[in-house]
């Protein structure tokens, strides 16, 4: 008996500067009529419909400013959608805020800890807000501090903590009231590799207890290894959705060979398309993205056809089947851009 998440045609347009967490790269300054003053408008979400099953680890993958945090914001009552609806289980997030808030735990992108309190107090007061009795919350805090390796700093005010420590306190806090749905917005940002693995383990374990987890990330490995299903988000829209395996299978061939030549290669494209194993070629100026079912063995033939056309091969990059390739395939941009 878990709790699922549903959104229908979520739209969010900011007409004033959004808070830092939701600041998008998709800012659009639209001049209205002849008015000299420009109207500030950011389309952060452009019709996002998702159905996340109970007990699932679901990933929102996309570059900065894609709308991941805004989606999480709407689902956690922090951002009011311009239109559309969002449900946590059977509760409409914007009609039954309190009921929805009882079901969720949230880890924001930036640590938003209560700086006036110690690590232990942050956990116990959080539990108190959720009505957990005193003895129970004290005990739970001890377990959580131990779990997240914070016991030796438990009674220090968190102001002096490192970024990674604050992140651990945030995650422990979100899990204090044992929420049915856990939101993790870029959870592993600022964590060292070891702590990241610890976090992944904790997420998996929490999920095994039947909890639903929605995480956002721009880290492919994280999405690939943790998530049951992934939605790829770009410019406020879901552009692909499925299991990591399904999604990777939608990239033609799987391998991506990015090449750059000494000059424009308009005439060369048909030749490249006819090379054995090549599924798709996208040309842009002197560069081409070649999707194929093999990587390395293709470089020789590409170089040969280039020199036959009087071009030099300047740069070659081969990537194996990955979500990164998938993102590139759909948007023409790298996730890291």
């Amino acid at each position, binding site marked *: 008996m878990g709790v699922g998440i549903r959104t229908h045609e979520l739209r969010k347009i*900011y007409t004033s500067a*959004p*808070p*830092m*967490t*939701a600041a998008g790269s998709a800012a659009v300054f639209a001049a209205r009529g002849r008015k000299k003053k420009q109207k500030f408008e950011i389309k952060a979400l452009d019709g996002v419909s998702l159905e996340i099953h109970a007990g699932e680890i679901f990933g929102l993958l996309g570059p900065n400013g894609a709308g991941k945090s805004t989606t999480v*914001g709407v689902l*956690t*009552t*922090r*951002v*009011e959608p311009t239109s559309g609806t969002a449900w946590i289980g059977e509760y409409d997030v914007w009609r039954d*805020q*309190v009921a929805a*808030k*009882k079901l*969720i735990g*949230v880890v*924001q992108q*930036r*640590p*938003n*800890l*209560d*700086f*006036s*309190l110690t690590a232990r*107090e*942050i956990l116990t*007061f*959080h539990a*108190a*807000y*959720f*009505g957990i009795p005193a003895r129970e919350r004290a005990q739970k805090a001890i377990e959580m501090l131990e779990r997240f390796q914070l016991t030796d700093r438990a009674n220090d005010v968190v102001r002096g903590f490192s970024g990674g420590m604050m992140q651990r306190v945030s995650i422990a*806090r979100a899990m204090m009231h044992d929420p049915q749905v856990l939101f993790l917005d870029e959870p592993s940002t600022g964590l060292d590799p070891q702590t990241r693995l610890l976090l992944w383990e904790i997420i998996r374990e929490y999920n095994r207890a039947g909890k639903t987890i929605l995480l956002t990330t721009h880290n492919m490995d994280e999405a690939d290894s943790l998530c049951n299903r992934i939605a790829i988000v770009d410019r406020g829209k879901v552009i692909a959705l499925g299991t990591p395996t399904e999604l990777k299978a939608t990239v033609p061939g799987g391998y991506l060979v990015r090449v750059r030549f000494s000059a424009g290669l308009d005439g060369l494209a048909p030749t490249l398309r006819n090379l054995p194993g090549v599924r798709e070629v996208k040309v842009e100026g002197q560069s081409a993205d070649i999707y194929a079912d093999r990587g390395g063995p293709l470089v020789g033939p590409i170089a040969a056809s280039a020199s036959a056309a009087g071009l030099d091969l300047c740069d070659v990059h081969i990537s194996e089947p990955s979500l990164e390739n998938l993102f590139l395939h759909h948007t023409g941009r790298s996730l890291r851009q």
Partner: protein
Amino acid sequence: MNWTTFAAMLRRDAHVARRNAPMLIVQTMLQPILFVFVFGQVMIRSGLMAPQYKAMLLPGIIAISMLMTGVQAVSMPLIMEFQFTREIEDRLLAPIRIEWVAVEKIVAGMLQAIVSGLIVFPAAWAVLGTNVSISFDRLGVFIATLLLVALLSAAGGLTLGVSVGQTQIGLVFSLIIAPMIMFGCAYYPWAALKTFPFVQYAVLINPLVYASEGLRGTLAPQVPHMPTAIVVAVLAALDAALIFAGLNRFFKKAVS
């Protein structure tokens, strides 16, 4: 309404206030006590001021202390909590309607303002020494006025805290709060301004005027003061307006 959550948030504020108590008390006490010493002792003993001034001064000092404490207790943490770090978010995500987070801030601020008034009152009285003609005959009205003043300070703190940023707060205190104190009829009765007709009517927009005159009317009725009924009505109206404005802006600031 989720009272468990509300009570837990109050406990959190009480906990933080207790931790900072020594500093807070010094901060609350120092200025009023110094002022009381200079004007209530030095000036009177040297004959530069009449002894009746003591009873006039005490209610004003309480009004200033309460108002400043409430405004600062609510606005300063709010400004911090809504900054870049968004510290307030764990309370916004607590299972309670967002408006109640703001109401809790008001209640916490009121309590601190009342505590401040109750600390400064005996201390200032003690510094003033003998011959302070204060009466508690109108205790009921005094308590009502005290609560309205406490609410005024906390609701004002809320409105201020969600309206200005960290960068402007210093400016607000020196450009608005400082003149407010000087023109707040705390150090002199409103009636004393009758020789400056323009000023006398201009200061009516200053909430501190009603706090000072209200407390004066209940504690030292022999000193000229505004009619208590009018003062209470204006305080209630100001409280309602500030609560409305504060909650509204709080909501806008809390949800993007």
